[in-house]
């Protein structure tokens, strides 16, 4: 294969099979639980069985005496060592200007437990079984208190209080948009459409449960944490600067192979904090691996909104204004980004794809006696899309206009477009996605398909969702002005070896996304070298200097752009060296298909030859050009990116049983340029599966009286399975993003963002009803079908 063919096979745009998959599917991955350290002991956490209680006493004498037990530690020990609590990294202000209100989030509970699963004590023993056995012997005297778990009750005067610092359990009362302008728009409306709905609470359920090993080196004073993190550098920063575990230079965090996160592994939890801290106390590495039941109660959950929304239209079906009031459940404590998800990641997307002149949104963030709620695949954007696309479809039906036509009439068509809710959309073609989706699903023939279903006693419906989302949130200064405690750039380092192979160190983090393949494709494409000569290194704070990790579909737009900038620097330096070696002017050096050559001559050298020249330093003046070939970049984009697209779902409902079958699902997405279409399609499939899961199956349910998690295992928490899903039809339209050099927008979350309203719109269409609550269980659909 010559260089051009090689590039076609493995470069940008090629559907390269994932390099990492062989390792994973043959059981050769190296996940945290696969790692075992010499002399390692095991931690087991004593968790609160109550939603809300005082801790009156902890008697662990029997546990300490149990076989194999090395130590039992409680919140008092954490406090005695002066460790800080866990933090929220995004400061939100209420309408009145006051900062958000919440109580401290201790690593191990001190005086109160605030949700079932809250961390009370840790037992460290020789084996995991001994730790668990001994944990049974820890006798905690609780003073049980009333609790509140439902978002709708949290602000009641009579509701139990989660933190004294937050009266009426209200963390913030935030607003966005122009209230007066929106009132004015509504006063001119010919038609106002109103809906109330909940966005159901979800539990992430990554395939690999969370895990950690903390280790302390007495000789150097360095701690090492192996953990399941989507952003190991952020973990190190938080554990160092805020929790105070160790200075940053004395803490190494390693998270290489991680089996899924969906947001839940962004956050810094008690368990890994304790493993690191306790490793010095017991003088042994300390390992903890979550059991699935622990994941259910203690991983940060997602969604859980209660919303009232209104859309104002003029007499021609033109949208005039949108008014939204949301109460968002934050759980018992704020996790790392809890406060940003229902605010800046939510209300800023409420303009959708539409030219909406006036928007006003209020969000109350409330605390409840439930697990913390934070970012989960889509983080705020699925909730926004649900609000808008349910309203839009309902409005179209109520004014008797075709839902596709109604959307066309209101699409934004001129770019850049400043929405009334911060975002400045740079590029897009919403009608292109809508038209392609209609074509793929054969929209015109839907009535015939509906008649066919009806002939079998079934009810068929179709539903649209034209979503927009924001990825790669940046630039850092803009994010900072909204309250973020961090910048959202990304770093990359390209190290060319003397033999011409390349290591790329990235601050982005792969936990299923396939970066080892897509990032290597970029390098293969740009340097013209085989993809197997490229190694992607991530997830180790000793190797990668700093990075912000992966979430919010940022790795392509931000992470790969950083690599691209570093590659440009590598090529620029290589060109200088080539000029000396080939004895030509720098301006005459052409770099093409992995070869440096002198324009118009047959003199040239392969990239690998140049790399060797760079390291020998024999043929260029090292006083002018440093030997070696290694460049890095900290890249900060100029804007968010705005992936958008159109999903259409077609469902069939069995009115006798209420079973909803998704018969067809079309997703047409504009992710900007695409590096690997197969991986992108895989991301869409996974996202849509999760979105259909939210719409039909998944529901985290707390008992309203006791605050116990009722859906605490897969027996009751319903994950989507292959037979719940149709074969998806996935299409693309492309408008390259202008805010980064590769024109990428991001594809990791779109599936979960766009799909839920499409499904609900289809079900309400099938049953001829206005609304139905997610998840649409068979019973809910059955009731709706009989008008119950």
């Amino acid at each position: 294969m010559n260089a051009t063919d090689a590039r076609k096979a493995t470069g940008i745009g090629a559907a390269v099979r994932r390099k990492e998959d062989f390792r994973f599917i043959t059981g050769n991955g190296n996940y945290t639980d696969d790692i075992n350290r010499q002399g390692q002991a095991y931690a087991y956490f004593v968790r609160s069985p109550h939603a809300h209680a005082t801790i009156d006493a902890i008697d662990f004498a029997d546990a300490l005496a149990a076989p194999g037990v090395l130590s039992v530690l409680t919140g008092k020990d954490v406090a005695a060592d002066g460790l800080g609590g866990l933090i929220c990294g995004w400061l939100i202000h209420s309408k009145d200007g006051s900062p958000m209100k919440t109580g401290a989030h201790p690593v191990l509970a001190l005086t109160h437990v605030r949700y079932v699963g809250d961390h009370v004590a840790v037992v460290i023993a020789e084996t995991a079984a001994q730790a668990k056995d001994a944990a049974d012997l820890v006798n905690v005297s609780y003073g049980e208190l009333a609790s509140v778990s439902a978002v709708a009750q949290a602000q009641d005067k009579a509701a139990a209080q989660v933190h004294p610092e937050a009266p009426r359990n209200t963390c913030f009362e935030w607003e966005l948009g122009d209230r007066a302008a929106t009132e004015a728009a509504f006063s001119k409306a010919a038609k106002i459409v109103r809906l109330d709905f909940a966005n159901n609470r979800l539990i992430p359920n990554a395939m690999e449960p969370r895990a950690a090993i903390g280790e302390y080196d007495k000789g150097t004073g360095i701690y090492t944490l192996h953990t399941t993190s989507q952003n190991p550098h952020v973990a190190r920063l938080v554990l160092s600067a805020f929790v105070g575990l160790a200075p940053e230079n004395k803490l190494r965090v390693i998270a290489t192979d991680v089996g899924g996160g969906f947001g839940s592994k962004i956050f810094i939890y008690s368990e890994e904090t304790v493993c690191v801290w306790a490793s010095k106390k017991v003088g042994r590495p300390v390992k903890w691996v979550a059991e699935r039941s622990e994941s259910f109660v203690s991983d940060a959950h997602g969604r859980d909104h209660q919303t009232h929304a209104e859309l104002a239209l003029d007499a021609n079906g033109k949208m005039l204004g949108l008014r939204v009031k949301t109460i968002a459940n934050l759980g018992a404590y704020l996790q790392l980004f809890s406060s940003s998800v229902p605010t800046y990641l939510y209300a800023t997307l409420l303009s959708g794809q539409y030219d909406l002149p006036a928007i006003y949104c209020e969000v109350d963030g409330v605390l409840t006696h439930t697990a913390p709620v934070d970012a989960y695949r889509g983080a705020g954007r699925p909730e926004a899309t649900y609000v808008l696309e349910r309203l839009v479809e309902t409005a179209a039906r109520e004014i008797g206009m075709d839902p596709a036509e109604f959307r066309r009439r209101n699409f934004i068509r001129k770019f850049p477009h400043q929405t009334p809710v911060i975002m400045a959309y740079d590029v897009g073609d919403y009608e292109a996605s809508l038209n392609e989706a209609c074509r793929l699903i054969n929209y015109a023939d839907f009535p015939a398909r509906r008649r066919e279903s009806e002939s079998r006693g079934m009810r068929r419906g179709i539903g649209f969702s034209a979503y927009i989302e924001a990825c790669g949130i940046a630039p850092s200064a803009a994010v900072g002005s909204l309250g973020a405690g961090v910048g959202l750039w990304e770093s990359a380092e390209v190290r060319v070896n003397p033999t011409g192979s390349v290591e790329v160190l990235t601050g982005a983090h792969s936990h299923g996304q396939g970066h080892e393949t897509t990032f290597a494709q970029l390098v293969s494409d740009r340097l013209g070298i085989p993809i197997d000569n490229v190694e992607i290194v991530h997830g180790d704070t000793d190797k990668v200097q700093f990075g912000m990790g992966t979430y919010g579909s940022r790795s392509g737009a931000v992470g790969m752009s950083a690599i691209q900038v570093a590659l440009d620097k590598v090529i620029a330096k290589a060109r200088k060296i080539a000029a000396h070696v080939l004895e030509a002017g720098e301006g005459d050096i052409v770099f093409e298909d992995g070869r440096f050559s002198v324009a118009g001559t047959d003199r040239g050298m392969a990239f690998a030859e140049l790399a060797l020249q760079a390291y020998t330093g024999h043929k260029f003046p090292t006083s002018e050009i440093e030997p070696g070939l290694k460049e890095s970049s900290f890249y900060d984009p100029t804007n968010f990116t705005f992936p958008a697209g159109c999903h259409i779902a077609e469902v069939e409902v069995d009115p006798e049983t209420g079973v909803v079958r998704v018969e067809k699902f079309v997703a047409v997405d504009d992710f900007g340029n695409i590096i690997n279409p197969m991986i992108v399609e895989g991301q869409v499939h996974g996202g849509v599966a999760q979105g259909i899961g939210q719409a039909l199956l998944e529901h985290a349910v707390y008992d309203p009286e006791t605050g116990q998690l009722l859906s605490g295992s897969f027996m009751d928490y319903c994950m989507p399975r292959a037979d719940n899903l149709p074969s998806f039809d996935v299409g693309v339209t492309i408008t390259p993003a202008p805010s980064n050099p590769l024109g990428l927008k991001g594809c990791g979350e779109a599936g979960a963002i766009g799909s839920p309203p499409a499904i609900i719109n289809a079900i309400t269409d099938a049953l001829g009803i206005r609304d139905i609550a997610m998840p649409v269980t068979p019973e809910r659909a059955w009731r709706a079908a009989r008008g119950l």
Partner: protein
Amino acid sequence: MYQFEYHRPKTVEEVTALLARCESPKILAGGMTLLATMKQRLAAPSDLIDLQDIPGISGISADAKNVTIGAMTRHADVASSKEVARAIPALAYLAGRIGDPLVRHRGTIGGSIANNDPAADYPAACLGLGASIVTNSREIPADDYFRGMFETALKDKEIILRIVFPIPQNAAYQKFPNPASRYAMVGAFVSRSAAGVRVAVTGAGPGVFRMTAMETALAKTFTPAALDGITAPIGEMLQDMHASGEYRASLIGVMAKRAVASLTG
């Protein structure tokens, strides 16, 4: 899981002796229910007595009248058995819809009916076919065996050896799975034989039960329409986060009708 002693006896007599001798023993069949319960620390037997080495208590045989299935026969073996498919296809169909492939290759019919989960499938077949449960001390008709939620006629330390299913004229099973666990939210087993029509329902109530009103109606006219208007008592239905009693009661009618329809073509 707590510590326990593990035994692997070779005869039923040895099992009986162990059961008599051990402090709080449990019989281990496929372990699909028992081991999970032990892992959650909801059960803590002192001894586990594994039945897998005992000859003669697994396997399937059929004659003109009955299909006999040994207690240790795995669900997958029932699902794929030619004898069962020929004699009582509904039983093979039912076994093939229990849990997932893993569960079907470990779980046993004896374990399933000893456990008598109110949402399990086999109890519907036993009651719907009028099977007999043969133990080491007696033979118990299905009508006397199932006593409500996780309750059976088994005495302490009694061992199920096999289940004898009389071959019906025909039979059908319709299962409405719980979307999450895929146990039966409602399962209706309908059979027709010289002895009459039987309709057994699992998943809906606190244990498998017969719908006698449906049996009477179907004995007169064996059509789905014969079941119109026959409803199960809502107050006696199970209720949980997945389904109300009202919904379960309605599903009984739908599933029973679909079972009958599949037999009347």
